[in-house]
């Protein structure tokens, strides 16, 4: 196979990484944007989505596609409910203090990871893809499931954009993000908004975990890589900026695909981390973020 087919393959792999990363990072960005909470437990919610998908596909009988669809619904819902409880039980009591919530979500990350280790075990466990067709290109065949993940991400992110910009719930979220005190003076129950956004952000991470698990296998520490990459994406894109998150996810994902294919995956992380350092020095608000108000 010549250079260009390999390059095309690298781009396709990068697109899949970008799709999963965009969904995960969108949740992280949403939580920070609205609540100003740096959610270190986000990676654990990603992992729980994958682990939840393993439980559903292992114990629920039925046609693989339907069972996987059930996993796509049930796992994010359960993770969102767990996150909602964590918000009420922990974050709200800390008054959403930026410093305290970082420590609290680090604790939550360890609790969830160790919980998964206890109940799920230390082994990586595979989840079969809901379908196994391959798309045959002149140079190589490619997984139809991986392309379906890209399509699902595009649809999901389009729905997310519409929800944020065109619905009453989105208006409430953006008003709360802009000025929570004044939002309360206009009848918005910001406590409910915060709990809902934290749950929704966790649900997005879990959904990304479900989508990725037929490609990567479920493992109790699998959330740490996506957590780091999500932070890289939201810092480069601009914390709280959905548009910036999507652009940065595409850039990092495609770079990941190409650099991993031609050099090594570790080099991707080194370069991405360097890029974050440059962004923090020269444009701390990120490429699409606005400066501090």
């Amino acid at each position, binding site marked *: 196979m010549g250079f260009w087919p390999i390059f095309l393959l690298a781009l396709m792999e990068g697109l899949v990484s970008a799709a999963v990363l965009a969904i995960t990072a969108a949740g992280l960005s949403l939580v920070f944007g609205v609540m100003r909470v740096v959610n270190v437990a986000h990676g654990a919610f990603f992992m729980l989505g994958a682990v939840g998908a393993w439980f559903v596909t292992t114990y629920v009988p039925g046609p693989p596609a339907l069972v996987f669809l059930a996993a796509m619904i049930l796992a994010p819902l359960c993770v969102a409910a767990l996150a909602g409880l964590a918000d009420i039980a922990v974050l709200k009591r800390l008054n959403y203090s930026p410093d305290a919530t970082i420590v609290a979500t680090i604790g939550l990350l360890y609790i969830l990871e160790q919980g998964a280790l206890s109940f799920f075990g230390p082994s990586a466990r595979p989840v079969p893809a809901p379908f196994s067709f391959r798309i045959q290109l002149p140079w190589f065949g490619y997984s139809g499931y991986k392309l379906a993940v890209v399509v699902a991400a595009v649809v999901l992110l389009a729905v997310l954009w519409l929800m944020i910009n065109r619905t*009453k719930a989105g*208006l409430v979220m*953006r*008003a709360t993000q802009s000025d929570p005190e004044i939002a*309360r003076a206009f*009848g918005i*129950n910001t406590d409910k908004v915060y709990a809902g956004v934290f749950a929704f952000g966790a649900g997005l991470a879990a959904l990304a975990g479900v989508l990725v698990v037929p490609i990567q296998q479920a493992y109790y520490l699998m959330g740490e890589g996506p957590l780091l990459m999500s932070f890289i994406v939201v810092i480069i894109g601009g914390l709280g900026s959905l548009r910036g998150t999507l652009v940065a996810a595409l850039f990092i994902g495609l770079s990941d695909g190409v650099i991993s294919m031609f050099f090594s995956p570790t080099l991707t992380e080194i370069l991405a981390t360097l890029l974050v350092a440059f962004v923090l020095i020269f444009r701390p608000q990120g490429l699409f973020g606005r400066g501090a108000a």
Partner: protein
Amino acid sequence: MLELRDIEAGYGAVRVLHGISLSAAAGEVTCIMGRNGAGKSTLMKAIMGLLPLTAGRITLDGVAIEGLAAHQVPRHGIAYVPQGRRLFAELTVAENLGVGLLVRGGDAALRRHVLDLFPRLEERLDQQARTLSGGEQQMLAIGRALCLGPRVLLLDEPAEGLQPSMITLIRDTVLRLKAEGLAVVLVEQRVEAVLEMADQVVFMANGRVAEIAPARGLAPDAPQFRDHVGI
């Protein structure tokens, strides 16, 4: 009628308001005056439930509203235009009005009323609030509050930093709202404006009500202005 009885409030352990009592009747403008740090803006926040009361009682037409969560207060008919306007800067004019209309379920007639009051806003509906001029921002801040369909309107220094033509527009708007039967509580530092609009003036000093006087009985050089406002 909005009635405050012996209310006390502050920030954490620091008590700012000490036993404030006053009332604001429908169709009247109550002006709050006082030096910087007298507690005027704190009083507004306390009425809105944005600061918890440590003592006292607030009623609106006989219904107690103290102790309600802040998001429940506007549902009882109290709207707030904060100092510095504090618009939702990244939202458009239409969206800012939309937030005001949330409590009333998107009342189209109310939105029309606000746009008739401030036709300039209708020309700027798709513009982000942060891109408006100072005067337009103040129109939007008042319009957003009126979208709640309030019985009581709290205005915290609405003319601050505005050019004279806009100050006149704000004054005319307040007088129109008063004629429509709203109880207006206005924090204002300019004596002329107070004498043009107010029915009663509440002078505050050090978090206490120093004096309540009917506006009709006050001359521009009345000693109260010198003693309590430093003018």
